[in-house]
């Protein structure tokens, strides 16, 4: 296990220059062929945000301020991290099928594919959060000092979802069924993780279960920066279950990767 971890870290360190370039290439790949180009990277999040906002506040008349912060900011602080996680779940869990030629045509370390893909969706996430902060400053919404922990939350999310991708991609490469199963799970993750409702409205047992849901923790952590105005370590009853899940994901990632990485090029 430890040698595997060492090998993965070594590979990532050795290819660090290429990771950044490949992340940029992945972004180019998304909007390639579209006349509007880069704008597309932000059009989808913006339109979805508008639709959610319209449904919840106009349609369902449910748009009270949360903890004194505007409802729209509360929504943005959950939906933008969700876009990142949705890509991580949908594409990140089966990343070798997105880059088959890096697996079995060129000599390239498999674990690095997960890293640069997660980095590429992280770049979009960072941009949308920067835009959010910019808009807040522009319209005079108070941003507290708790926003300083946002980079830390982003780093945790980056490492967690990279490990997630390393954990599931070898299985996704081996079996298309497995890849489809994970993709199917992304919808329930979205509706159950409190992206569009407040987790405090769940019954206590539901809240307890949700502390073990990494999607819920990540969304809530981003909201801690903007809405709840708390440091993430001030709520250990949520942080500790997440750290346990984190550890399990890392261990499973090492196990799956160790078992399968030699086989993946043979089967893809």
């Amino acid at each position: 296990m430890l040698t595997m971890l060492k090998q993965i870290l070594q590979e990532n360190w050795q290819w660090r220059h290429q990771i950044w370039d490949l992340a940029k290439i992945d972004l180019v790949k998304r909007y390639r062929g579209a006349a509007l180009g880069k704008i597309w990277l932000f059009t989808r999040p913006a339109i979805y945000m508008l639709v959610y906002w319209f449904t919840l506040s106009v349609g369902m008349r449910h748009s009270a301020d949360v903890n004194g912060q505007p409802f729209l900011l509360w929504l943005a602080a959950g939906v933008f991290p969700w876009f990142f996680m949705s890509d991580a779940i949908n594409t990140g869990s089966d990343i070798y099928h997105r880059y088959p030629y890096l697996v079995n045509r060129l000599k390239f370390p498999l674990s690095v594919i997960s890293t640069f893909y997660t980095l590429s969706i992280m770049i979009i996430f960072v941009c949308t959060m920067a835009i959010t902060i910019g808009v807040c400053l522009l319209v005079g919404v108070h941003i507290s000092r708790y926003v300083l922990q946002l980079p830390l939350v982003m780093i945790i999310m980056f490492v967690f979802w990279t490990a997630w991708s390393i954990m599931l991609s070898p299985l996704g490469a081996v079996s298309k069924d497995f890849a489809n199963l994970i993709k199917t799970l992304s919808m329930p993750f979205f509706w159950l993780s409190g992206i569009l409702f407040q987790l405090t409205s769940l019954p206590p047992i539901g809240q307890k279960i949700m502390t073990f849901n990494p999607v819920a923790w990540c969304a809530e952590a981003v909201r801690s920066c903007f809405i709840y105005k708390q440091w993430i370590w001030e709520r250990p009853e949520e942080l500790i279950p997440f750290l346990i899940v984190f550890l399990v994901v890392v261990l499973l990632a090492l196990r799956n990767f160790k078992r399968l990485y030699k086989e993946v090029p043979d089967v893809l």
Partner: protein
Amino acid sequence: MSSKIHETAIDYGDAKIIRDEDRTNPVAVRFDHVRKTYKLYKNDRQRLLATFSSRIKCDYINASDDLTFTCKRGEALAFLGDNGAGKSTALKMITGVCFPTLGTIEVHGRVSALLELSAGFDMRLSGMENIRMRCQLWGLSEKEAEELIPSIVEFSELGKYIDQPMRTYSSGMRARLGFAFASSIKPDILVVDEALSVGDRKFSAKCRKRVNDIIQNENVTVLFVTHSTAQAKQFCSRGIVLSHGKTLFEGNIDDAVEFYENT
């Protein structure tokens, strides 16, 4: 990056791979009792289950079996053998895209491969973007890449098509670009897998000339897989005859061709 030498010696269970960029080592490639086993499952479900339980049964096929040979620096070595003899598997293990099950593989120097030339490109990116990406993966700096790219584009004869998305290319165009790249980046070890029948006759002659030029450079080691014994004789000085993953004969090229044609 390209000037830095990093050595990796990794134990993959029973197999060992030693890979560095030491181009002064008199040995370029060495295989020592190498075996490559493919696991064949009835279906993908069985393969998935096998990662959780060791009780799932599967068939084994040895694509390479007890393969031993040494290729010296600057040598041009031909692999001869029928389909399924394990030639391509051996070359894939040299390039590092597939892992041995048993034995030791040593590779000293950077490997570029002319294998399945039309593969290995991103269909959604343009030819130019693909070439830039490959240059980065090869570890060239931006400056080195800028110097190299015009000659690659010129050699591939793609002209204005170079900025079109790769998916609009014909297979011949892809193969031309693949050949142009792999033969332009000045590797220490060049692996060639029946790639010289690229495009029309004129282009194919151009490719043969390019490979010949590379072979003439005495620092470059060439490993060559072909069915055409005439080509093997033209390019190579030594030959290995493979059958069912095993070495049947190893010696100078004329003897190897004679041995291959008589069995």
